[in-house]
């Protein structure tokens, strides 16, 4: 038997039997929301795969060339080699465009799934002891994901990405005391920074994916060690975990999920164009593309920059410029609060016990209300990132839209938070509808009408 032989070969050298026996018999709890992290992992693999293909053709060079490829509207135009190679990937390399679009779509979904995954962990209290460390690793993965996205869409050296870099540089410049030095060291000098593309390239294809890979390994190792949390239910306790065995059912399901994830991404990539850089044209520091919007996951920062009133700190001849507050203070506070959350919450609840069973969000009204309030704040910021689109769509004056959103940024979290708290209190303690418990049965009576009956009576 080939299986037996392989196992023997490995065991005689690496002693694998004890570990593998445990692994194969491991039990994973079943719930759709536990698949989010897994989907993120698969999207990361897809990003690596398509990314490697793209590196074979992309040239991260700012050297100026004159385009002579097959996309006629840009023939004869001066552009950087980076932008030219991107046009080549899109028009010359066979199946290059589909790879590019898969890469970009996978990135958009990767961040979306990461955010939803984080929300799941937050609202169900999965971050509580003993899993605080993994919450920290997870948040760092999200931060790295955001940086990966930004560095990635800045690479093509088209008009849109140049605008994003320009704003990023200005935000760095706005940091008190160290801003100018930091901006000059990170971007390699004053705008329009000669070799930023090659620098971003190394960051995007080596540093960030390397860091993500390492932390992902750590993230999974900790899940492995601590085992997955589960929702309360029959037989499920803080000591006993109920679910599906690793081999074969769970493993095959995981494989299926990978293929289904990949299938979704490729369908999107085939049918929906993404980031058509040939329409934006090459970067030109004196031009700006109208209605420039970043990828969705940076929309909240774009919105914060737009909603910030014309206000800054000036004292003793020093300035803390306007972009510092929306561009750095808001994301800085956001992530610091998130990082500290497990400890903040434990301080208020005085709960130091380890938890393997999850909360249903309704059972912890304060956390859920705060979470919803925060979420609605970022949603307003996100919407504000497209305030010009809204103004155009509803034919409203732009300034009114902005003012309305400024008010909403404070009002909506308040209203949503209070409402959530009320609703949770209302629902608290009610048993969930799982389909496990006996329900009502509709029976036909002798005279031909219908009535509901308890199942026992039937």
């Amino acid at each position, binding site marked *: 038997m080939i299986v037996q032989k392989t196992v023997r070969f490995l065991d005689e050298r690496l002693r694998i039997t004890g570990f593998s026996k445990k692994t194969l018999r491991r039990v994973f709890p079943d719930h759709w929301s536990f698949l989010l992290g897994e989907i993120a992992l698969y999207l990361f693999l897809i990003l690596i795969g398509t990314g490697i293909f793209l590196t074979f053709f992309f040239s991260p060079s700012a050297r100026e060339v004159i385009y002579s490829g097959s996309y006629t509207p840009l023939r004869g135009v001066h552009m950087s080699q980076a932008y030219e190679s991107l046009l080549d990937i899109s028009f010359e390399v066979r199946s290059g465009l589909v790879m590019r679009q898969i890469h970009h779509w996978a990135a958009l979904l990767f961040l979306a799934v990461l955010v939803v995954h984080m929300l799941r962990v937050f609202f169900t209290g999965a971050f509580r002891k003993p899993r605080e460390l993994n919450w920290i690793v997870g948040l760092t993965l999200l931060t790295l994901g955001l940086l990966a996205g930004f560095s990635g869409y800045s690479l093509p050296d088209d008009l849109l990405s140049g605008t994003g870099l320009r704003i990023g*540089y200005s935000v760095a410049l706005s940091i008190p005391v160290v801003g100018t030095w930091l901006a000059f060291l990170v971007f390699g000098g004053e705008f329009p920074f000669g070799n930023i593309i090659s620098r971003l390239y190394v960051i995007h294809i080596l540093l960030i994916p390397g860091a993500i890979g390492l932390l992902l390994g750590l993230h999974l190792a900790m899940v492995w060690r601590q085992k997955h949390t589960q929702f309360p239910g029959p037989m499920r306790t803080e000591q006993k975990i109920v*679910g599906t065995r690793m081999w074969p059912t769970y493993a095959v399901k995981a494989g299926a999920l990978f293929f289904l994830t990949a299938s979704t991404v490729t369908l999107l990539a085939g049918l929906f164009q993404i980031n058509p850089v040939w329409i934006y044209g090459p970067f030109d520091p004196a031009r700006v593309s109208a209605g420039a919007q970043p990828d969705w996951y940076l929309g909240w920062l774009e919105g914060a920059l737009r909603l910030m009133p014309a206000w800054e700190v000036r004292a003793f001849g020093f300035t803390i410029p306007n972009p510092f507050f929306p561009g750095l203070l808001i994301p800085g506070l956001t992530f610091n609060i998130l990082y500290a959350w497990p400890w903040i919450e434990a301080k208020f609840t005085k709960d130091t016990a380890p938890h393997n069973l999850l909360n249903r969000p309704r059972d912890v009204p304060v956390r859920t209300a705060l979470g919803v309030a925060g979420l609605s704040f970022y949603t307003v910021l996100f919407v504000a990132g497209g305030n010009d689109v809204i103004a155009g769509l509803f034919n409203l004056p732009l300034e009114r839209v902005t003012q309305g959103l400024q008010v909403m940024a404070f009002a909506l979290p308040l209203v949503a938070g209070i409402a959530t708290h009320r609703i949770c209190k209302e629902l608290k303690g009610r048993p969930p509808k799982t389909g496990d418990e006996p329900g009502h049965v509709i029976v036909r009576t002798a005279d031909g009408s219908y009535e509901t009956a308890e199942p026992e009576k039937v």
Partner: protein
Amino acid sequence: MNEIKGEDQAVRRIALAFGVSTLAGLALALVYILGGNVQAEGVLLALSLGGLGYGLAEWAGKLMSQGAEVGDYEDAPPPGAEEEVAGVVSEGWEASFGRRKFLFRMLGAAAGAMGLALVFPIRSLGPSPGTSLLRTAWRKGSRMVREDGQLVKATDLAVEGVLTVFPEGQTDQADSQTLLIRVDPDQLNSPDGREDWTTEDGLIAYSKICTHAGCPVGLYRVATHDLFCPCHQSTFDVLDGAKPIAGPATRALPQLPIEVDEDGYIVAKDDFSEPVGPAWWDMNR
């Protein structure tokens, strides 16, 4: 009986899914050979991956044993285990470093010095900011050119006309990009001390770099005589010293003093009076 029928149907569905996947995979190869097409590639890939995914999910869900297995969570550590480990660590520490305080401090000094030395290469990543942010390429007497290098004459612009200009020979200096606008001189309300920064026939020049976050201020709206930055919608009043009137910008666009030389070309009388572009910590020092 029913179960067997259900299984039969599942087997049929799974086989169909794998069949579709196989065909899609072969078709994908064909599309590639024929030259490729992004829509066809995307859809066929989706079918080939999706067929596999659906088939496997169905297989695991219908033909394999389901859930309700029980496992254990990790037990809490036995009492005393932590103290034991901590004891081993501090014992070892005391026996080695703790007894030799002087050597340990020297070790710290060496490690610290090495750490410091390793920080220095970061300095190579960029030039010193120095005064580079305070100045642009404009000098007294710089003639204005368009982006393509062509010299600008005072007669080139009609009223309400607008042009992006650079100092002659410096069209690659992004921080020097300037907007030259012709307005009706009677409407113009120059701030004190800037009365002679414009030409008699209403030519006025402002930095094109938004003072908010540095985007090029792309849009001149003739009806309201304002400059609009598309990035975060800062708006500057052209007739009133380019002061910000809407949006997040807090500073006016710096103005370039200009005049017409004897050949009819427009020249700068000096560099911008203030630093252009976004603000920083000690820009006013």
